[in-house]
């Protein structure tokens, strides 16, 4: 197989925590492990979805990939080049290769820049001086982002655009440098349902036309299922399951994936939900549980789980999960009691 476009090896990110006096005297050092030894590869032209609840480390992974944050340890190569290079020249080349689209199109566009300036800025930074070429490139990027007729939009300011149009401007800005990799962090969660589909279809097209490689970070499993080729489920800084999206959705292996998928609302009144009741609270990230991180919430918890080191086991070629048990070995513990509801009129 050809070399993957993105290769993430043993990526770790820890944040130090302010120490109080007691810790200082005791010499205790606490830290938050946001990412704990993540391994991922993304092939050229593939869309990988990163899913998980808040605090799972999905956004951190995306931000390290575009170098908005530095990793504590581990390495990432993009198209064969390791990132994390110090030189200015390398950083510039890296920016040309990897671009990002953010969640909130209301905040990521400069309100004083019109659409033309917003999209032309990266071109200027990367040394394009010819005004005619620049104009053509901006128009082309807008056309690709389906903001048509492009000539009508270029002199508008962000406040004159709708949410969907803004996100298209952000996408146009992201692709104008013809990057190899696009990282999209919740790009549709702020948009109305009726336009979400358009943005998702647009991202799909970008992949098909330019074989752009994408990392799509989202908590919304339905959009991941629609857009992505593969999905990685994260929980407290670890990958718990990874595989082709249809396989994972149709036959989730890890108990956490099962819980997550069972919680997604379905717009079909006949759909019978098999709810798996778990505790809502995610353990705090400083005092992580021993063994499997999902252990304290897991309905199938067994003593063996304390030994779990989250090594990924194969289910099939590409489908792997980090549970110490295979799916058919899972035995349910006592089902937690549902909340008692009593009627007590005042």
């Amino acid at each position, binding site marked *: 197989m050809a070399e993957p476009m993105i290769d993430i090896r043993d990526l770790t990110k820890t944040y130090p925590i302010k120490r109080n006096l007691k810790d200082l005297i005791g010499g205790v050092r606490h830290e938050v492990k946001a990412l704990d030894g993540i391994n991922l590869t993304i092939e050229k032209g593939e869309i990988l979805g990163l899913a998980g609840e808040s605090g799972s480390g999905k956004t951190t992974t995306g931000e390290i990939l575009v170098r908005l944050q530095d990793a504590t340890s581990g390495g990432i190569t993009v198209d064969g080049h390791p990132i994390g290079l110090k030189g200015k020249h390398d950083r510039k080349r890296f920016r040309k290769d990897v671009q990002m689209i953010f969640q909130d199109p209301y905040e990521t566009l400069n309100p004083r820049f019109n659409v033309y300036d917003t999209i032309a800025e990266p071109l200027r930074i990367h040394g394009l001086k010819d005004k005619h070429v620049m104009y053509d490139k901006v128009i082309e990027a807008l056309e690709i982002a389906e903001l048509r007729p492009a000539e009508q939009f270029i002199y508008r300011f962000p406040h004159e655009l709708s949410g969907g149009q803004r996100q298209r401007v952000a996408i146009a800005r992201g692709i104008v440098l013809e990057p190899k990799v696009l990282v999209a962090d919740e790009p549709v969660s702020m948009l109305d349902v009726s336009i979400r589909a358009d943005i998702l*279809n647009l991202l799909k097209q970008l992949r098909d036309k330019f074989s752009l490689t994408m990392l799509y970070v989202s908590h919304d499993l339905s959009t991941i299922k629609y857009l992505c080729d593969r999905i990685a489920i994260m929980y407290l800084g670890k990958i718990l399951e990874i595989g082709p999206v249809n396989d994972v959705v149709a036959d989730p292996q890890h108990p956490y994936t099962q819980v997550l998928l069972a919680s997604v609302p379905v717009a079909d009144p006949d759909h019978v939900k098999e709810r798996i009741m778990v505790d809502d609270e995610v353990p705090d990230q400083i005092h992580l549980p021993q063994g499997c991180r999902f252990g304290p919430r897991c309905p199938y918890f067994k003593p063996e789980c304390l030994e779990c080191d989250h090594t990924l086991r194969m289910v099939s070629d590409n489908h792997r999960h980090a549970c110490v048990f295979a799916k058919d070995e899972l035995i349910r513990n006592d089902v937690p009691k549902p909340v008692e509801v009593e009627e*007590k009129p005042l």
Partner: protein
Amino acid sequence: MDKLLEVKNVSIEYKTEAGIMRAVDDVSFSLDVGESMGLVGESGCGKTTLAKSIMRLLAKNGKVSSGEIIFKGEDLVKKTDEQIRKLRLNDIAMVSQSAMNALNPVHTVGKQLIEGIQAHTKMSKDEARRRAAEVFKMVGLEEKRLKSYPHQMSGGMKQRAIIAMALSLNPSLIIADEPTTALDVVVQDHILQQIIELQKAISSSMILITHDISVVSETCETIIVMYGGKIMEQAPTKVFFKAPVHPYSLGLNNAFPSITEIGEILISIPGTPPNLLEAQRGCRFSERCPFATGKCETEEPKLEFVDENHTSACHYNDQVERFREESAKPEVWAKVSNRIFERRKEGAS
């Protein structure tokens, strides 16, 4: 069944610098005792405005310009502010979108809850505390959490505390405005489940406002689809998700990704919602509707019955079979996209 709430021909206007904006235009619906209703639509369709008007929580520049809101036989629009204040929490409670951020950070959650109960009843502090502990238990929070400050609780716990607050006086109507949008999917599922169970247990009615139609499918008995300040379709949930009638509802269904379907194609609705600052002519959805005719652009359709309990505001309700078939094709919606593109061009030149 008895009607708890009747909204009759309500219009709500906001005074803005750019002129008067009619956010809700001549809307009528009714809610039975014990019924749960989902109100869905895009942002700016008037769903939150409508709900807030019931509790008279509109922004200062907004007011109900005409119509009646009959709650338990009395018109809320005509009541004084003091009468409405007494009604809140006691009879009508609201769980709003960012409610968990509305908790006062310098008081314990319990204090805020007890304060609310005491303000609306004659209970002593001890009785109020007992009631608070009771409702906390109902939403699955431990009693000791009453002593927590908001920053010591997670988002899900805060939202639960807010729901406990809303339920503390057994209101006959709960208005929940996007109660779970900011929460993780597992927590969202639990809380929705709980809201429904509790609503049934204290036999109150509920209006659930959301943009997520799948949430309505799982929680509500009826659904109202709003667009541009108008009701487009109202139906029992079971009927709606199998056989929607209005072209806008058909479009919404197409645009919604489902976790259970493999290989689906999503089609979004081209265009943007109407600008309600401008006077509206004809059907508000006509600009984005693939089946719009000349009639749709000039004549406003009324809500008409297509079945028992099922209404739709379209001139061509009788052609729904054809619409359903056609609306599943991406090229049908692409035509709308081109139409909007042509109009934009014309507008420019």
